[in-house]
C-alpha cells in the first residue's frame, strides 16, 4: 500500500559475498568426469547412452525455458511481487547458452535418436514422405538456430537490461523490457512447442499429439518455479534476500500449485482423447507406457507429479513457509525427472522399466557444468534488481 510509504527505506543492493569458487570448481570437475563416463558408456552402447543424454538434456532445457517464461511474463503483466526474485529467473534462463553447446552430440548422432533423419527411412516410409515438408534436415537446422538463437539472445537481453538498471537506475530499461515482452511470449510459445515436437514427439515420427507442446510447457513452467523457489530458499539460508517474506513464498507456492494442476489437466486431456478415440497411430505412445513394468512408472507419475503435490500444497500455511515450500520443490524437480524419463526411456527400452548407469552420469554431468556456470552468473551481478522502480511495492507485498 503506497499510502503509508513514508517509513520505507529501500534495501541496499546485495552481491554474493560467499566464496563459492571451490564449490563451483568441484562441481565442474564432477560434471566433466561424469560426462566422460557417459561418453565411455556411449562407446559401449551408443543408442542407450544417447537417449540417457537426451533425457538429461531435456530435463534442464525445459527448466531453463520455463525460467525464461517467468521472466518475460513478469514484464508483460508489469508484476510488482516478483521484483526481488526476478533476477534468479533471469540467471537460470541465461544457462541456455550451455544447452546450445550441449546439443552438439545430439546433432552429430541424430540418426541414432530420431529415425526420420536416416536417409534410408525416407525412401521406404510413405508416412515420412507425407511429413517430409516439416521433418527435413534443412528446416530442422533452421529451427535449431531459431530455438537456441531466440532463447540465448532473448535471455541475455532480459538480464543485460535488468543489470544495467542496477547501475544507472533508469526506468527506461523497465519500459523497454515490457515493450518487448509480448513479442517474446510469441517467440517463447513457438520455441517451446516446436522444440518439444522436434526432440521428443519425433522420437517416433509415426506418433503425434496436438497437446504435446502444451504438455511439455506445463512441466517446464512448474519445474522452473520449483527451481527458483529452491534457489531463493538457499540464498535466504545463506543470509541474502532478507526483505522477502512469507507473502512472496505464498505467491510462488500458489503458482507452483496452479501449474501442478495445469500439468495434470493437460496430461489427462492428452491421455483421455487418445484413449477414447483409440486410433492406432495415437495409442502407440500409451501402449508402450501402460504395459509391462512401465505401467508402475505411469501410475507413479500420476500419483507423484499430481496427487501428492496437489494435496501437499492445498493449505495456506504450507505455501507461506519457504522451508515447507522447498521440500515440495525438491520433490517436483524429482518428478520432473521421472516425467522426462517416462517420455524418453520407453522408446529404447521396450521390454520394461530399467535404468542404465549412463542415465545418472549424463544427468550429473550436465548438472555439474550447469551449477558451475550458474555460480559464475550469480556472482556477476546483484542478487536482486536493487533499483527497479517497483521494488518498494514488492517488499511491502500482502496478498
Amino acid at each position, binding site marked *: *500500500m503506497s*499510502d*503509508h510509504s513514508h517509513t520505507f527505506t529501500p534495501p541496499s543492493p546485495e552481491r554474493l559475498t560467499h566464496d563459492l569458487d571451490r564449490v563451483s570448481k568441484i562441481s565442474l570437475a564432477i560434471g566433466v568426469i561424469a560426462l566422460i563416463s557417459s561418453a565411455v558408456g556411449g562407446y559401449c552402447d551408443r543408442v542407450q547412452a544417447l537417449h540417457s543424454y537426451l533425457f538429461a538434456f531435456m530435463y534442464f532445457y525445459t527448466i531453463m525455458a520455463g525460467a525464461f517464461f517467468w521472466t518475460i511474463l513478469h514484464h508483460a503483466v508489469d508484476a510488482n511481487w516478483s521484483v526481488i526474485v526476478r533476477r534468479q529467473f533471469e540467471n537460470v534462463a541465461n544457462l541456455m547458452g550451455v544447452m546450445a553447446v550441449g546439443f552438439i552430440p545430439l546433432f552429430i548422432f541424430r540418426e541414432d535418436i530420431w529415425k526420420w533423419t536416416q536417409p534410408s527411412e525416407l525412401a521406404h516410409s510413405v508416412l515420412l514422405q507425407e511429413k517430409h515438408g516439416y521433418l527435413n534436415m534443412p528446416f530442422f537446422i533452421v529451427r535449431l538456430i531459431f530455438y537456441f538463437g531466440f532463447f540465448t539472445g532473448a535471455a541475455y537481453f532480459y538480464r543485460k537490461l535488468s543489470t544495467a538498471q542496477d547501475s544507472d537506475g533508469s526506468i527506461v530499461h523497465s519500459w523497454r523490457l515490457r515493450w518487448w515482452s509480448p513479442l517474446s511470449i510469441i517467440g517463447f510459445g513457438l520455441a517451446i512447442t516446436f522444440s518439444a515436437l522436434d526432440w521428443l514427439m519425433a522420437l517416433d515420427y509415426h506418433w503425434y499429439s496436438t497437446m504435446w507442446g502444451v504438455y511439455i510447457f506445463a512441466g517446464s513452467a512448474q519445474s522452473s518455479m520449483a527451481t527458483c523457489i529452491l534457489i531463493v530458499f538457499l540464498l535466504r539460508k545463506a543470509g541474502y534476500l532478507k526483505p522477502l517474506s512469507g507473502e512472496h513464498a505464498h505467491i510462488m507456492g500458489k503458482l507452483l500449485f496452479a501449474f501442478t494442476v495445469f500439468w495434470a489437466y493437460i496430461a*489427462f486431456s492428452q*491421455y*483421455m482423447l487418445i*484413449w*477414447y478415440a*483409440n486410433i492406432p497411430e495415437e495409442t502407440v505412445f500409451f501402449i508402450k507406457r501402460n504395459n509391462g513394468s512401465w505401467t508402475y512408472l505411469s501410475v507413479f507419475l500420476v500419483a507423484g507429479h499430481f496427487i501428492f503435490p496437489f494435496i501437499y500444497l*492445498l493449505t*495456506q500455511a504450507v505455501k507461506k513457509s519457504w522451508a515447507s515450500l522447498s521440500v515440495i520443490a525438491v520433490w517436483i524437480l524429482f518428478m520432473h525427472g521421472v516425467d522426462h524419463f517416462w517420455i524418453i526411456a520407453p522408446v529404447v527400452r521396450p521390454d520394461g522399466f530399467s535404468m542404465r548407469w549412463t542415465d545418472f552420469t549424463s544427468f550429473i554431468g550436465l548438472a555439474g557444468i550447469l551449477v558451475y556456470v550458474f555460480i559464475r552468473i550469480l556472482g556477476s551481478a546483484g542478487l536482486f534488481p536493487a533499483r527497479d522502480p517497483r521494488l518498494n511495492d514488492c517488499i511491502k507485498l*500482502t*496478498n
Partner: protein
Amino acid sequence: MSILAKNSEGQSVEIYAIGAEFPSAAAVFEAAQKVRDQGFKWWDVYSSYPIHGMDAAMGLGKSWVSAISLAGAATGLTTAVLLQTIPSVFIYPMIVQGKPYFSLPAFFPIMFELTVLFTAFATVFGMFTVNLLPRLHHPIFNWERFCQKATDDGFFIVIEVADPRYSETDTPKLLESLGASNITLIPRD
C-alpha cells in the same frame, strides 16, 4: 445490556454502536491496529475499496470459508463418482466403445467438473453464511454520514456497544486520540 441516549427530539433510543470517520486509508489502517491492540472484538472497519493487510491490522483470524470449500470439493467428488459408477456398473451395465464398465478415465471430466461446481457453491454460500448474509437492513445505515460516504470516499471504524471493552467515556476518547472526526452514536432502530 442496552445503552440509551437521547435523540434530537428528546426521545431515548437504544444505541447500537459508536462510529468514527478517518481521513485516509493509511489513517484508518493505523487506527485499526490501535483498536485491535486495545482488545476490542465487536467492531469493524468500512472502506469503499479493499485495503491490503487490513485483516492482520484488525487481528482477524483465518477465515473458515476454505474449510467449507474443501467440504464442498469432497462432496462434489463423491457425488460424481457415485452418479457415474452406480448406473454404468450396477444398474445399466452397457459396453460403450469397447471400454470396461468401470472406465475411470471417462469419469474424470465429470469428477473434475462436479468438484469445481460444488466447491464454488460451497465457497459462495459458505461466505454468505459466515458473513450472516443476506440481510435486508443493518443498524449502521441509521448513521446518515456513513450512508453518504462509505461507498464513496469515507473510511470508518464502528465499535459496537456490545463489546465488553466498550466504555461510554473512554471509547470516544480513544477514537478521538486516533485522529477520528464525526464521532457519532448510532441508534439501533
